[in-house]
């Protein structure tokens, strides 16, 4: 942890400068924060977090005073658990910041042209007692939870935290047209389950199954439970085949 105010504020100033913050504003910010530390008696990183992350939150993404404010782009998309981490990395590098997961579990993202920065993401299991431990490990490193879905959560961090000025984003690729990304494994699982449902539904309708409807329902439910178990197992293993196979729908 950085406990030397001089080193810390040098790093902070460099990060703010890289983000285009005016020198006068940097000087006044550093003076204000120095005053704050004088009163709290705390170490800079303990009080403000890592310098690069703090710079990004503080104003690194804010346009300079008087500059026209570009309208933020928004984009909502989703992926299965086999391709989500790869795609988050790809889209984070294109400046997309995940703000939250919506009620359908989709990533709600925004990007402001002119002040976009690269983001990095990670997915962690947070069920039960793991939650407090995961948060305690990740938050001091600048990771912020940006969405939670059943068993797992997504965390984001500006890449400036790990790469410094190299994380700057000069040009922005166009907003992707797709919104649904399924890996090969995800597509197979979906197709298998849909086929099972169609088969059971059709057989039931034409009376070919010669079995009570509750048996058919039991088979369908068992299929869903098996799929859920397999998904959880893959989440724990961190299976990811999205690098080569995820395609936008």
């Amino acid at each position, binding site marked *: 942890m950085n406990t030397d105010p001089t080193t810390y504020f040098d790093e902070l100033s460099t990060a703010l400068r890289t983000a285009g913050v005016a020198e006068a504003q940097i000087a*006044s*910010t550093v*003076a*204000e*924060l*120095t*005053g*704050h*530390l*004088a*009163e*709290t008696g705390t170490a800079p990183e303990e*009080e*403000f*977090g890592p310098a690069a992350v*703090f710079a990004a*939150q*503080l*104003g690194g993404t*804010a346009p300079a005073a008087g500059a026209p404010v570009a309208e933020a782009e928004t984009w909502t998309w989703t992926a299965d658990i086999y391709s989500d981490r790869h795609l988050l990395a790809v889209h984070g590098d294109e400046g997309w910041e995940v703000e939250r997961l919506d009620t359908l579990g989709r990533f709600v993202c925004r990007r402001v042209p002119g002040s976009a920065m690269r983001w990095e993401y990670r997915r962690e299991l947070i069920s039960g007692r793991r*939650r*407090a431990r995961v*948060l305690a490990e990740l938050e001091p490193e600048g990771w912020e939870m940006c969405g939670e879905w059943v068993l797992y959560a997504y965390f984001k961090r500006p890449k400036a935290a790990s790469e410094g000025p190299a994380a700057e984003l000069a040009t922005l690729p166009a907003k992707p047209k797709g919104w649904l990304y399924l890996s090969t494994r995800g597509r197979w699982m979906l197709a298998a389950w849909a086929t099972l449902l169609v088969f059971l539904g059709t057989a039931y309708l034409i009376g070919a199954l010669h079995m009570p409807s509750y048996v058919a329902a039991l088979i369908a439910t068992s299929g869903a439970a098996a799929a859920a178990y397999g998904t959880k197992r893959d989440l724990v293993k961190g299976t990811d085949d999205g690098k080569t196979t995820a395609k936008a729908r």
Partner: protein
Amino acid sequence: MAADRRSSWLKGVLDLLVLSCLTEGESYGYEISKALAEAGLGEIKGGTLYPVLNRLEEAGLAVGEFRVAERGPGRRYYHLTEAGRRHLATETDAWLDFHTAVKTMLHTGGTTR
């Protein structure tokens, strides 16, 4: 866990709480964090507070003015703008409506004790 919960709750209302610290007159970062802690809202670190103050200033809801001190580092004093005062009034009403809905829901759920 309690701290995690409080930090999540604060996310939605911290801007308003900071604005409310300025209704009686100007204040500065450390004083605001102390006022919030004394109000029972927990310790708000500078890493959380200053980005909020920056956002409020960028939105025209507060104005900061840096003053050099005779001794030690200077301070940036913030005061509410007219737009900030209106925003605080409107959003406070909205927050209190939300708070009432949460309270009603929790009580209906049998947690009245």
